[in-house]
């Protein structure tokens, strides 16, 4: 697929090995503590390393810590870890690293979570968190690439949320009106997904749904159990498209983290997308109930801005052709935009076509406007886009305004409507 590109390919996995194995963690030849703490070194190091604090989460500091470990500067690594813990006292990953660094002063250690008898699942969780965080930090989205899904945002959608479940990452994009509504990267955050991964299908499958959603409510902390942390934003899973595909379950939220931990493992929720409390608070400032799109993908696809513009223009032209063909009152031309598989509720294409013919027969003129249009590509292998707009329909005998949502799918190279309904 031309222009389609995954960021992963461009960036080597050079880092993945670091959190798994501390190759060099061993006390020196002589007394362990002497090696780890040469006389006066503790004091000197304290002066040398400023306790820098990043407001973008712990990734910067984690990276520095692992770099120090790799260079076998364990005292510096420990000091940085303690600084990190002062900032996030409940940060389990940092506690584990601290334990390792302290234990390394007593004996050589080979692995992450070197405590013997450590519960393997919990160590694996923390290791997974370290890896995804560092990877995401090293592979931040480039300026010239945008998530493919954000083809066109409504003018009133100030921000969009894109979640990459495999990378345990939430990307916040702004709707850059000054630049023709192009998505502008704002920030990215570590997230937790369902215990059993993504692509939710039934109630209780402990998976996070894949699709195009939006925030439907803002539940303040006071109304929530501690599990949800500093707030919660339900999304509209299952949406009309999910239901049509037989997907079930409910109660998928973006929410915060319980008070006893700074972060949860990459896979830990029952399907919700979980952020740390500070990250949720940061994201929450930009969420508009009923408006802000939340697109969840197993693996975000990135487009260059050129390819993104091309795809967007193509779809806008297609949607406009549909609008004009409706206005033409040539029902056959109009119906060519619909897929044979079209379904709206219980109505199939034949029923839909007959109804349209009847209605159009009574029309002398039709005017259709599509205001506040948004076009979001649906994540996944099928080429599906979700189109939402305020439809202003006028005719000689009827005027009607409604919010409409359509799902378009590319069939044999042509975009066809496979679902249509009020939104």
């Amino acid at each position: 697929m031309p222009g389609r590109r995954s960021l992963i390919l461009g960036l080597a996995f050079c880092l993945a090995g670091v959190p798994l194995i501390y190759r060099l963690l061993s006390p020196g030849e002589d007394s362990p503590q002497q090696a780890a703490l040469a006389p006066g070194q503790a004091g000197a190091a304290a002066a040398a390393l400023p306790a820098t604090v990043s407001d973008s989460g712990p990734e910067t500091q984690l990276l520095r810590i692992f770099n120090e470990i790799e260079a076998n500067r364990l005292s510096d690594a420990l000091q940085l870890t303690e600084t990190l813990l002062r900032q996030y006292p409940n940060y389990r990953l940092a506690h584990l690293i601290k334990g390792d660094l302290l234990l390394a002063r007593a004996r050589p250690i080979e692995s992450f979570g070197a405590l013997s008898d450590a519960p393997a699942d919990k160590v694996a969780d923390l290791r997974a968190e370290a890896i995804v965080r560092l990877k995401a930090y090293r592979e931040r989205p480039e300026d010239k690439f945008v998530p493919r899904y954000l083809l066109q945002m409504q003018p009133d959608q100030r921000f969009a949320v894109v979640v990459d479940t495999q990378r345990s990452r939430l990307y916040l994009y702004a709707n850059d009106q000054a630049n023709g509504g192009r998505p502008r990267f704002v920030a990215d955050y570590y997230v937790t997904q369902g215990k059993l991964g993504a692509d939710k299908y039934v109630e209780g499958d402990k998976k996070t749904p894949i699709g195009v959603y939006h925030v439907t409510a803002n539940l303040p902390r006071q109304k929530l159990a501690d599990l949800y942390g500093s707030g919660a934003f339900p999304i509209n899973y299952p949406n009309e498209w999910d239901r049509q595909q037989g997907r079930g379950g409910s109660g998928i939220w973006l929410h915060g983290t319980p008070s006893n931990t700074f972060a949860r493992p990459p896979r830990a929720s029952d399907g919700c997308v979980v952020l740390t409390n500070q990250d949720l608070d940061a994201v929450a400032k930009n969420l508009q109930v009923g408006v802000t799109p939340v697109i969840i993908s197993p693996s975000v696809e990135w487009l260059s801005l050129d390819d993104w513009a091309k795809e967007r223009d193509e779809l806008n032209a297609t949607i406009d052709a549909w609008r004009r063909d409706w206005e033409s009152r040539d029902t056959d031309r109009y119906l060519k935009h619909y897929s044979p598989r079209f379904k709206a509720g219980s109505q199939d294409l034949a029923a839909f076509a007959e109804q349209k013919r009847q209605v159009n027969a009574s029309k002398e003129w039709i005017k259709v406007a599509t205001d506040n249009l948004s076009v979001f590509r649906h994540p996944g292998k099928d080429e599906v886009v979700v189109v939402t707009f305020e439809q202003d329909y006028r005719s000689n005998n009827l005027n009607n305004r409604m919010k409409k949502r359509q799902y378009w799918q590319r069939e044999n190279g042509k975009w066809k409507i496979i679902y249509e309904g009020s939104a």
Partner: protein
Amino acid sequence: MTIKSLVQPRFQQLKLLRAVTIGLAISFAAPAFADSLPEVQRLIKQGQYPQAMEKVDAYLSSRPKDAQGRFLKGLIYTEMNKPNEAIGVFTRLSEDYPELPEPYNNLAVLYAQQRQYDKARTALEMAIRTHPSYAIAYENLGDVYAKLASQAYDKALQLDNSNATTQNKLALIRDLITTSGKANVKPTAPAAAPAVATAPAPVKVAEAKPAAAPSASVVSTTPGAATPAAPAPVAAPAPVAKVVEAKPAAEPAPKADAASDEVGRAIQAWANAWERKDMKAYLGAYAADFRTPKGMSRKDWEAERTKRIAGKGGKISVEIEALQTTINGDSATAKFRQHYKAPGLSSSATKTVTLVKAGNRWLIKEENAR
């Protein structure tokens, strides 16, 4: 030192320093008081803490800055289980004499006792900064690091150690009292130390022991000592051979057969070789597959031991006390208290040594200090 499991840490006790050895000779007592501090030390050894306190206060009234006197005062508070007072004394001492490692070390012991391991660590790091070659502080610091690591792991992995920790904490406190109790009785030995192999001294010690009532009662509460219901402690500091003889006399199950006799002799021979700095005999006491500490190579370990034993100036004394042996076929476990003394360093630790029988000899396979 190998730490098998930090989830159930084997608490190694931090070594409390009982004498200020470095530098304090400078603060010479005036002749009139010359006998005052040894008297205090004697009273401490006998467990007569209020009397010791009285003496040391009298001594300090005329020389309030005296480091040795204040150090002993801190020690008395420690023995009297008044950790906060002891911490106060040692803290001020370390402020007035920042170059002395001992007050820092003992502060660390007290902090560790209160599970304030971060403070203990800071204190020990100060001790090491003032004296980079200070072995006891390093040893203690290793233990404190292990504790801190254990705490960090608990937080990282949400290990529910609340019960275990409480128990361990109690055990630690008892251990410390036990240590001090025993060590108080013990220092009679230094005078007689060279004569480990000869009999007379131990008798005296054995007599002294019941007098030091508190220590005896505490010993019985020590988990390790309580369970085997072994009569061993009675014969405490006597040479090993004596212990073995004493055992049958002390009745119940004289499982003490020839084998435990042999093991006892092997341990004693090992300690003697150490004292003589006879490296050939000392290293020869270890099995070929001896588990070297920290997994270091046998060669490195031998080099290190040689450096630390043969390379040490002055006299080394190694005393074995309260030996208990368990024989299991061709393998044996010997548990004892080891009192080590060398210029500038003295320590007491509980050792557990695993031995294996090779031919007609018992060789050390593993050695752990707690």
